[in-house]
């Protein structure tokens, strides 16, 4: 096992990078970060639509969330994989196909996290803002969302772990990421699957568990700062 790490650590870490696309663990983390950054604004819009008064937008966002939650992520990846080139007119590459699929899918899940945050915020905040003469948009941007983002930060962080885990499915359309790198090493060595998949699994575990633990620690801290006892 140490021998494999010694020979292939750079490949596991960045893939074929200088001579090819960035891959390996760096590719996985890059993909997950881009996805989080792009999905967050989308999910905030969906959450506002879900909690808003406008029936039309409530209906639209409800359908988006439930369709995304009811469809396997692989299905969405293949939709993006086959429809992406048709919509954009050219091939956009597996990496960006995966970004599109992840943003579509994760926006729905992140929206549910943010919606829960909006709904758990005492309504007095909105009423007070209204009494002070804030418009509905200003109330949302200046009063509600900052508190919601702060309170749901731990939940967003654990959703980031889900995103990291989901990037591994990019393997099926050939995205250069960590799982892809490991299976390439596996097809070079052929006789060492136990060691290679242990390295792959344990590395994923170390990365994801770090974020999971951070999320738990923040949850306790944020809970305490508001005088709420940790559950």
């Amino acid at each position, binding site marked *: 096992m140490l021998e494999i790490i010694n020979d292939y650590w750079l490949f596991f870490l960045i893939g074929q990078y200088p001579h090819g696309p960035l891959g390996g663990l760096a590719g996985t983390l890059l993909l997950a970060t881009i996805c989080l950054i792009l999905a967050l604004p989308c999910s905030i819009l969906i959450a506002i639509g879900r909690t808003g008064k406008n029936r039309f937008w409530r209906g639209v966002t409800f359908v988006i969330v439930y369709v995304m939650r*009811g469809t396997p992520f692989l299905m969405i990846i293949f939709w993006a994989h086959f429809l992406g080139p048709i919509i954009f007119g050219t091939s956009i590459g597996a990496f960006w196909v995966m970004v599109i699929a992840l943003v579509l899918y994760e926006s729905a899940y992140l929206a549910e996290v943010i919606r829960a945050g909006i709904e758990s915020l005492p309504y007095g905040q909105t009423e007070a803002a209204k009494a002070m003469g804030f418009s509905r948009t200003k109330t949302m941007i200046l009063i509600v969302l900052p508190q919601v983002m702060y309170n749901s930060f731990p939940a967003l962080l654990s959703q980031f772990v889900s995103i990291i885990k989901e990037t591994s499915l990019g393997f099926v359309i050939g995205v250069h990421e960590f799982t892809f790198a490991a299976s390439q090493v596996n097809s070079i060595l052929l006789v060492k699957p136990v060691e290679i998949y242990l390295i792959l699994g344990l590395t994923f575990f170390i990365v994801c568990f770090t974020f*999971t633990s951070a999320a738990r620690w923040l949850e306790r801290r944020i809970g305490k700062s508001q005088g709420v006892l940790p559950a």
Partner: protein
Amino acid sequence: MSFESIAVLQEPYLSWLLQGLSLTFALFIFSWTIAFVLGFLLLLMRMSPIKVIAWIPAAYIELARNIPLLVQIMFWYFAVPMLLPDFLQKALNRWDSGFILAGLALGFCMAAYFSESFRSGVRSINNTQVEASRALGFSFLRTMQYIVFPQALRATIPLIMNNTLLLFKNTSIAMAIGVHELMYQVLSINNDTFRTFEIFFVATIVYLFFSILIMIAGEFAERWAKKSRRASNA
């Protein structure tokens, strides 16, 4: 567009789809059973007063929840057979090894999620209930059987339905190791006909249909749980 004009719903593709769907169901039921039973065993171990025994499921749950399911399936498919003794390897190859190993991987992974759901149900029961029943002379297992689990079930069922939905969707990942379930068949039909839009549309509707059934069942379970809690409090 009438129903007959959808080319991918004509033979032979219709039977490909149906075969895929039946294998998806078989995989779903197989891994759901493993997840449920193992999740329950993990919960029992976790509640043990002996620290070491309680620590094992806790560590396993962290492992299973922080490693991508695809990686776990690949580990089961590529690595686990190498670790098995010869006669078991042969037995696996005689049957559909991809199906069995994917089912085991799914079941073992989802057991961690199921176990966490069970545990949050148990934790929703006030500890005074346990103390009272122990004071009345119930043993630990009998306390669980008669006092804690029946009450915990209410808080647990909605969570379990959510995990069931997750499990159902995740059966599609088995295609990565070549199990001929619905997703795999959909891609084969796509390669055969190039009617991408049609076949994906049909498959998405099929998946959505069963997902929504599970979601509706979850919604009903939640309502039932709320109602029966109110009734028992009155």
